[in-house]
């Protein structure tokens, strides 16, 4: 007898439908899974057999063939367990499947209970989009599934529940199946662990009120976040680069509905969603350590998963100690920074993840940290500072529109001085400026404007234009350098609540541009 059920596979962030066909036929007892399964999926055989028996059903002593169609697509993971198990029950005549039945998602334990799966949300979205609205999935994934509109998702605890649902009121054996208790655990310690509420993500964020001094760097950060400009903070150890960057989460505006859905899908695929779950409203801030591997940064690995650039989609990717990252890892960032997405090529096909990130980086000017210090001599060898900076490739440095050199805060500023502004105040200004920019630019931050669009939308006042021309002539700036000044000036004007860009904004932006772009440095070491 043959049974056909529907489930889904997720590839990148897109899901696609998979049909699970189970045939139970007379012959020597055996179970074959065909249709490009990976190792975890091939092991479904063993899990399914034990789960069926322990849930109070009978595992047929027949020849079982499971086909996952379309057969040419590689399938990974354990999310098909439930569909395979229910398929065997239907095919062996133990339960009868209702017409227009359910799609099934879930991993089985040997005792017949269900384990949560990774990427449930895009799978549910795929099924709903294909007209398959009734979906059975593990209860921990239910909240996630309900984020998808029009989904009629039911969360179940064990195989028996799923069987009852599929069989409907006319189920025969299903009604007698053993009732599974949720979260049956062996030892009290494990039980305690399981019942403990998930601790909120460790909040290492800093309020700007705790950052003393550094008025220039704070200002640059405000501009960067309001306009989406990439920012590089340089300075000796102890200058407060990391502390300042840690205040970014408290300054970012929340995600809107569309962005929140995207972020939640990404979190779901990365397996980062936990119960109780809701749409991710906070803008991502990712700070991978500099030992981060290539696959961890851009995504990939044997089981293709999104990397840090994707997890930071529509948010901020903070790279502390930029020069200490592997060269390959940094060079891999160029594609996402240019295209806003990252493509991972595999033999089995290409996966594309979104990766619109704003890059904030921090680095020492050299290994000892004192190169360029007005008073203290750098103790590095003669070529070292240059070599140190060169570990970051030119094209990547070129993408960092704003560069601020930070110095250690003098003691008097640390202990006294006026109380710095708190994050809430600055966040308000950033949100207003960002909203103004988005409305004017058609939903894009100023940093994402093309050169011509920047010139058109910046609304330069006449004196500002004259000043810009003067700057361009004096420094022999490239078109790219000029557009960079205009974009930053546009953000400065947005923060000031001005509709047009005046001369002072152009000058302020020019003062912030990359110092190394000035001609006197062209010839110096």
């Amino acid at each position, binding site marked *: 007898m043959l049974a056909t059920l529907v489930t889904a596979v997720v590839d990148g962030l897109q899901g696609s439908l998979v049909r699970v066909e189970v045939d139970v036929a007379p012959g020597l007892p055996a179970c074959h899974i065909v249709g490009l399964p990976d190792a975890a999926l091939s092991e479904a055989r063993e899990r399914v057999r034990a789960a069926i028996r322990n849930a109070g059903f009978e595992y047929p002593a027949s020849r079982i063939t499971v086909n996952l169609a379309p057969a040419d697509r590689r399938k990974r993971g354990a999310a098909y367990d439930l569909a395979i198990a229910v398929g065997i029950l239907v095919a062996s005549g133990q339960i009868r499947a209702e017409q227009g039945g359910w799609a099934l998602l879930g991993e089985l334990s040997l005792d017949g209970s269900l384990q949560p799966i990774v990427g449930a949300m895009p799978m549910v979205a795929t099924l709903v989009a294909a007209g398959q609205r009734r979906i059975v999935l593990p209860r921990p994934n239910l909240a996630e599934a309900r984020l998808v509109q029009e989904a009629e998702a039911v969360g179940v605890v064990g195989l028996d529940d799923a069987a009852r649902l599929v069989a409907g009121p006319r189920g025969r054996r299903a009604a007698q199946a053993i009732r599974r208790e949720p979260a049956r655990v062996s030892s009290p310690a494990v039980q305690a662990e399981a019942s403990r509420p998930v601790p909120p993500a460790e909040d290492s964020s800093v309020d700007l009120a705790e950052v003393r001094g550094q008025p220039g760097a704070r*200002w640059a950060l405000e501009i960067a976040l309001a306009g989406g400009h990439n920012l590089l903070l340089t300075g000796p150890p102890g200058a407060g680069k990391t502390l300042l960057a840690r205040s970014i989460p408290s300054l970012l505006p929340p995600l809107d509905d569309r962005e929140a859905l995207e972020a939640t899908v990404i979190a779901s695929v990365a397996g980062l969603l936990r119960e109780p779950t809701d749409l991710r409203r906070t803008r991502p801030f990712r700070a991978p350590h500099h030992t981060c591997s290539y696959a961890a940064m851009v995504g990939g690995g044997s089981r293709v998963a999104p990397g840090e650039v994707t997890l930071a989609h529509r948010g901020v990717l903070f790279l502390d100690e930029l020069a200490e990252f592997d060269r390959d890892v940094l060079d891999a960032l160029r594609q996402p920074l240019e295209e806003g997405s990252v493509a991972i090529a595999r033999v089995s096909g290409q996966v594309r993840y979104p990766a619109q990130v704003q890059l904030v980086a921090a680095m020492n000017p050299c290994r000892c940290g004192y190169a360029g*210090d*007005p008073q*203290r001599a750098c103790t590095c060898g*003669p070529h070292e500072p*240059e070599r140190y900076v060169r570990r970051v490739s030119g094209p990547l440095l070129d993408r960092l529109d704003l560069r601020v050199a930070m*110095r250690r805060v003098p003691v008097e500023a640390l202990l006294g001085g006026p109380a710095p502004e708190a994050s809430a105040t600055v966040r308000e200004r950033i949100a207003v400026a960002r909203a103004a920019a988005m409305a004017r630019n058609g939903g894009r931050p100023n940093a994402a404007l093309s050169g011509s669009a920047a010139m058109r939308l910046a609304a330069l006042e006449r004196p500002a234009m004259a000043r810009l021309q003067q700057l361009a002539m004096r420094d022999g700036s490239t078109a790219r350098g000029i557009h960079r000044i205009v974009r930053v000036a546009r953000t400065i004007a947005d923060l000031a609540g001005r509709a047009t860009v005046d001369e002072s904004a152009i*000058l302020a932006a020019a*003062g912030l541009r990359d110092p190394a772009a000035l001609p006197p440095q062209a010839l110096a070491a």
Partner: protein
Amino acid sequence: MASSREAERDAWLVLAAVEGVGPRTLSALVGAAGGAAAVLTRAGRGDWRWLPPELPLAPQLRARLHAAHRPAPFAALAARMGLWMLTPLDASYPARLGVLPDPPAVLFGRGSPEALRGEAAVAIVGTRHPTLLGRALASDVAALMAGCGAVIVSGLAIGIDGAAHAAALRAGGTTVAVIGAGHGHGGPRAHRALEAAIVAQGGAVISELAPATPPTRGTYPRRNRLLSALSDAVAVIEAPARSGALNTAHHALEQGRPLFVAPGRPSDPATAGCLRLLRETEARVLTGPLELLEDLGLSVAPVRAARGSPGEPAGRAAALAGLRGGERLVAAALCEAPAGLDRLVERTGLEPGAVSGSLALLQLRGWVQAIDGTFLVAGVLSHP
């Protein structure tokens, strides 16, 4: 006649290429035999009777001289690399090198040999890892000297040397780099572009070593004697206790070249070597670019003229008085000490945007320069 002079020069080059024959031996041999060609002819015949008793040549050296033949082994490589060669037999050999007991037998060079015989030449040397202030001082001195026509001589190293060469070029001047290895090995890779710019702007990059000679421990100290010999004065900008610049300074004293040393704070290791020079030798204190100009007897007037803009104020005070608003506050703060954006905001009490804008204006005027995010006074503001 011309051909015999050429033959003599060729023979000189052949002798200079013989391993173990340095400038001293070479001139002694040529003196004893009455000409380089004569040395070669006699050595070829195995005739050594003409050797004076105070010049007993080792047997290996005699054998090498005996086997030497034209053309000199390095000549082909030098030609391929586009190098010119100067020997003391050439009229354009720099006369300043006469101060040396052992002037180089051959100078290999790129660029313009005339740069070696400029009216005035100043060597600017210092450490390979300078502070920002040291780098700025080197640039200022080099720019001013080059601006009034002096050739800036230095060693093409990273640090003070590079800053001096680059500043001289920016000032539209001529500069000469003396490297401590053969041209085939050249200067630091990071300075390839600088090297090309020096040549393109009428300067020269020279070495007394054959093109294939690699740099070794001994080549740099020997090179240093050329830095001072090719200059009318030597300025040491920043030298820690152990520095090649100190070696150059001692050569300058031996050769009777005026030596100017920029002082530093007594506790500062970056200038420990400078202070020792000032204490232990007759070196003079370098108090600023303009004073150095006066001490050298060069006129300041053409500099002011060369700086162009007739409205340019005469000094820092006048320049500051001509500024208004934020620009004036920022400029005054920078005159006290170089600073980054953060410090300037704190010192002036202005909004960061206003400080940044003022800095842009001051940079447009050429009165402020930015190095790695620290801002320093430049131009007229750096001459109190």
